[in-house]
């Protein structure tokens, strides 16, 4: 296959950035999208040009590091995939493909296609945990968890924190990410003691990090590589409302 790429090049956070056009040949349909980018980079290196910086690590769809907007679609047009698990068989010979970084105020560009997602860490640090020091846990089977609740919690806990939900959202909202963590913990008995405090604190951190509000367009769910459902956002709203109404502190 021959592919024409229009790739966002931006030297650093201060640079304005622009699209550059590249042609790559000898692309095989079994290649992943990132392997195709490897081919481009090898070509650029050998032409003594600056290779395209992009984030990637596990290349098996679980670490959440890869992050490209491909022809306007976060992680590409194939449903429920990460960029590393998108294969060139989903494209045609001669295609022109536009590749951009996640675009959101809370995710500033570091270089080219790599962005800074530490805002996600800050949201988790605001309460995405159960406060249990090592060594103080009770016997694991002393608290039964109904199987369906455990499964629902797992559905939410599968979030890989890639940020495609933010990139897909016209408001750059991270509500799907936030709601996945809040749901995971609110559904489990272990998460109950800090349930109210957690949702209020994490919501605040979400807003302070510069993420926008949710207007229920559903774009996040459509692009989530792990198929995290927006019913989690509905749950987040219920959790927040009930926590806020019953809080003894002003929210």
């Amino acid at each position, binding site marked *: 296959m021959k592919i024409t790429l229009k790739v966002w090049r931006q030297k*650093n956070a201060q640079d304005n950035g622009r699209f550059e056009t590249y042609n790559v040949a000898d692309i*095989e349909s*079994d*290649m992943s999208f990132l392997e195709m980018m*490897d081919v481009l980079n*090898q070509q650029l*290196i*050998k032409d*003594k*040009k*600056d*290779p395209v*910086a992009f*984030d*990637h*690590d*596990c*290349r*098996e769809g*679980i*670490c*959440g590091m890869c992050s490209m907007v491909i022809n306007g679609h976060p992680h590409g047009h194939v449903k429920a*995939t990460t960029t590393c*698990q998108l*294969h060139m068989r989903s494209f045609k010979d001669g295609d022109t493909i536009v590749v951009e970084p996640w675009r959101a105020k809370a995710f500033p560009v*570091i*270089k080219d296609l*790599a962005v800074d997602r*530490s805002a996600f*860490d800050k949201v*988790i*640090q*605001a309460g995405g*945990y*159960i406060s*249990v*020091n*090592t*060594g*103080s*846990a*009770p*016997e*694991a*089977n002393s*608290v*039964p*968890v*109904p*199987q369906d609740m*455990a499964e629902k*919690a*797992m559905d939410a*806990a*599968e979030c890989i924190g890639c940020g495609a939900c933010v990139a897909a959202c016209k408001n750059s909202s991270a509500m799907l990410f936030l709601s996945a963590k809040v749901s*995971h*913990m609110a559904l*489990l008995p*272990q*998460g109950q003691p800090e349930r109210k405090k957690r949702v209020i604190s994490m919501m605040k951190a979400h807003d302070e990090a510069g993420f926008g509000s949710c207007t229920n367009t559903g774009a996040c769910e459509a692009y989530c590589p792990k198929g995290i459902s927006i019913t989690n956002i509905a749950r987040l709203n219920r959790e927040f409302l009930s926590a806020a109404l019953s809080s003894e502190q002003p929210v």
Partner: protein
Amino acid sequence: MKLDAKIPAGNLEDKWTTYRSKCKLVSPANKRRLDVIVIGSGLAGASAAATLGELGYNVKCFCFQDSPRRAHSIAAQGGINAAKNYQNDGDSIYRLFYDTIKGGDYRSREANVYRLAEASVQIIDQCVAQGVPFAREYGGLLANRSFGGVQVSRTFYARGQTGQQLLLGAYSALSRQIAAGSVKMYNRHEMLDVVVIDGKARGIIARNLITGQLERHGAHAVLLCTGGYGNVFYLSTNAMGSNVTAAWKAHRKGALFANPCFTQIHPTCIPVTSGYQSKLTLMSESLRNDGRVWVPKKKEDRLKPPQQIPEEDRDYYLERMYPAFGNLVPRDIASRAAKVVCDEGRGVVKSGYAVYLDFSDAIKRLGKDVIAARYGNLFEMYQRIADDNPYETPMKIFPAVHYTMGGLWVDYDLSTTIPGLYALGEANFSDHGANRLGASALMQGLADGYFVIPVTIAQFLADEIRTPPINTNQAAFAEAQNNVQAQIDRLLGIKGNKSVDDFHMALGKIMWDKCGMARNAEGLKQARKEIQTLREEFWQNVLVPGTANEFNPELEKAGRVADFLELGELMVIDALNREESCGGHFREEFTEDGEAKRDDANFQYVAAWEFTGTGKDPQLHKEELVFENVKPSTRSYK
């Protein structure tokens, strides 16, 4: 140098309990004044950093990824072992210990492994309390499944993403400590040297990967939780960034490197399809619970559609060769058997390097829904990569490099031979001998981080309470920084004609061909020469674009490959020295009836190597392994 493993006296069952009752402690007021650096944020690193933070130490944690949640522990699929005996099938701490020692082909240390089995029970309690959503039965209690090399069900799991859920549990505990101010996190930082002052590890030189700035960080102790070195083979199931650099720099500064040739080749990975491939993908070992491994009996059937090969023409070779364990033999044995049938010309893809993993019997017996519930995400992942539906056509699989049992030599305290420098998780060598059993890597990472190091590190730090914060203006820091800077400048200055990947690929081919699933003296000797030549060429002809003071992933890679080019030679030397076959190390000259032949009389030791200079013969130190509780025997899974 005399290696002292510092194994506590007493009965195996009492060693760890006695140790904890008598060991030194550091008071809460003094912990606040002690600084600890943790390199890596995977299961071992995140759990260690979080727990040391909870205890009150000042912790700095470093990872090269953009967030501690990305560490490659996240990709572990199948599960985590624990001797809970919830299934009432005869499991016990002793049995988990025994299975691990036997599975490791009697090349690990009894006391460490027993402690690991003891900690396994607490790990599950801890993770459940953190909210890890393990699979459960209808009654709400925890579910288990079986894994290779054992006859009990002791593996806890969260769908096919157990590593992800355990890591996110450790990450949440770490995040809590970051918020509390007890841990300071450095994302996108790579450790490029360890600083040793008066024989003790006192800090590191790290590169801020965004700005390129070199930073000095001092501490009273340094923990390396940096994972394995499987990427020396170029193609492996490791993440692209997984590397040996931190461990190798420590080795160069005096830490011994143990059993480097012990690498695990995992039997069930998606086969290589062509030369552009950047990495290999594992299909969880749990699939062998319900999948049957086979190849055609006749060579001429190998490329026929599998559905057209009648039952009597199929060779379910694992069931045939190892009837007691069948498809659930340990990984080294399953991998080697696949190599044997493929070498016989019965491999089922064009290249000849693949076998079938067939679920049709299980689907007939249990129904598609049950199989989908157990392995749905793995099947989906397979279909996405291989473009083939495993519900209808058997999966094609082949062994791939997955894990490294070797690593920095550590004593019972997890201390390397440099006081104050510790190695945890896959980065050390201690628990898995010559072969690791499935679902034991997660167990070891978390045992080391949550339960071992928080106790053992006090043996060192209790004597450091009078040491003030480490001053990073000392000469040793300046010297280490200058050396790091010099290497970066040298790499950028070569401006040769070959990319870093060209060299990495060439190294990987040497390692896979000559130090992979089967090794022999002639090949290993040749490999050493080839690696030396390749390394020389690297330092004359590598092309690293860009500058030092920017985000430069190619420069990062170049530094890592430079270290792999040294490690590869050590692996070959170790493999040549070990004139026996054991676990993942299979020497073609040492076999009996086609099976590996171990030599306990001459090789029942840990080979710990001391660095003497690049390209020079390293010095071998032996730690004899003493088995007081189990009697080494020929491992039989027949």
